[in-house]
């Protein structure tokens, strides 16, 4: 062994190491970022505007109070109002074209749970939770954005805050969400 410079002190080794680290970290950051950005919607629906003109959430997402899913509005629902609105811009023209042809708008749901989580809106609405508790302040959003940190601990946190210790025993039961 001629060289007296230890392995870890060689610059080439250090550069390669740094690069590998960078790629791994970058991949992780990119992956996380990718899951956090809102997906591309067929029409960049401006939630803030519709709330601004006084639309209730349940006007379009009708199922929340009565069932597991809040649901996404049909073209009919959009067309009901938009028929009377002049298609001033491209997006409105898109709505008009969907409406006129009676085609469905392929909305991409944003607030979804993995398949092993059973979530029902109904009990949460009955417990008088508001929509923005989980879906964020939509007056500030155009398209719906996924909310950060909605993991199991977040669910449990809220269940604990909203209940007495005895109730929490029941509300933290696995079968509340998983079966």
């Amino acid at each position, binding site marked *: 062994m001629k060289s007296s410079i230890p392995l870890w002190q060689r610059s080439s080794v250090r550069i390669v190491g740094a690069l590998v680290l960078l790629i791994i970290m970058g991949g992780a950051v990119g992956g996380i970022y990718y899951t956090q950005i809102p997906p591309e919607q067929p029409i960049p629906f401006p939630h803030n505007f519709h709330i601004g003109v006084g639309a209730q959430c349940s006007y379009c997402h009708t199922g929340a109070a009565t069932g597991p899913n809040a649901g996404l509005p049909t073209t009919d629902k959009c067309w009901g109002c938009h028929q009377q609105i002049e298609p001033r811009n491209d997006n409105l023209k898109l709505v008009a074209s969907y409406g006129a042809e009676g085609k469905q708008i392929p909305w991409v749901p944003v607030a979804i749970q*993995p*398949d*092993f989580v*059973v979530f*029902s809106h*109904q*009990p949460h609405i*009955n*417990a008088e939770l508001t929509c923005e508790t989980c879906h964020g302040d939509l007056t500030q959003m155009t398209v719906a954005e996924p909310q950060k940190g909605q993991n199991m601990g977040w669910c449990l946190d809220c269940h604990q805050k909203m*209940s*007495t210790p*005895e*109730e929490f*025993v*029941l*509300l933290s*039961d*696995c*079968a*509340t969400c*998983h*079966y």
Partner: protein
Amino acid sequence: MTELLAKEAHDEKWGMVIDLDICSGCQACVTACSMENNIPFVGEDEMAYGRGMQWMRIRRYWEGEYPEVTPDYQPMLCQQCGSAPCEPVCPVFATLHSEVEKINLQVYNRCIGTRYCANNCPYHARTFNWFDYEIPAPMNSYLNPDVTVRRRGVMEKCTFCVQRIVKGRQQASAEGREIEDGDITPACAQACPTDAITFGNLSDPESRVSKMVRSDRAYKELENLGTEPRVTYLKGGKSYGG
């Protein structure tokens, strides 16, 4: 709302009674369970090697010698033991007792697949996903959206159709009433052509199951192990009543 929840939870203790005198052994419950709970079919070779995924199996022994020979049927499913051998051995709490329904839960997404619970179940009621079983499209269309489709490497077993229990409770609570006897029926009891399976709340002394459990024909499988099964069998056979 929360009051109702707490009250109900204290009142729930689901149990099943299977009357072996009228159980004909026809296997309709087995099919019903499989169709309700997204149980995959595994094919001939795997079945031959004891890897069938049926949550419910009908044990058939033969009694007597020809010509007095007769089969002895006993539907075997997870007994939802009150003191379940499977629970303490799971290293990650993937199987545990539920506080609300008082049944054994199997949390698929927590399971890491040690299969210890299955070894420790004296009823052999647990099945393991040896592979990712494919249900060829479009046959996957009939999968029940209320029940998780399990992937390879996790344990599964009868859940007393917990999805139906939860739905029934939510329905009752939405209607502002308590769950009534007979509101909730698991798929097996619903299908059973001779109504040999009865399901209900054991903590209600007036429920049908509670009455049947007090029958002098009632027994529990491997009771001496102290597992406190929630499934009660009513003795049948030709000696009874005839």
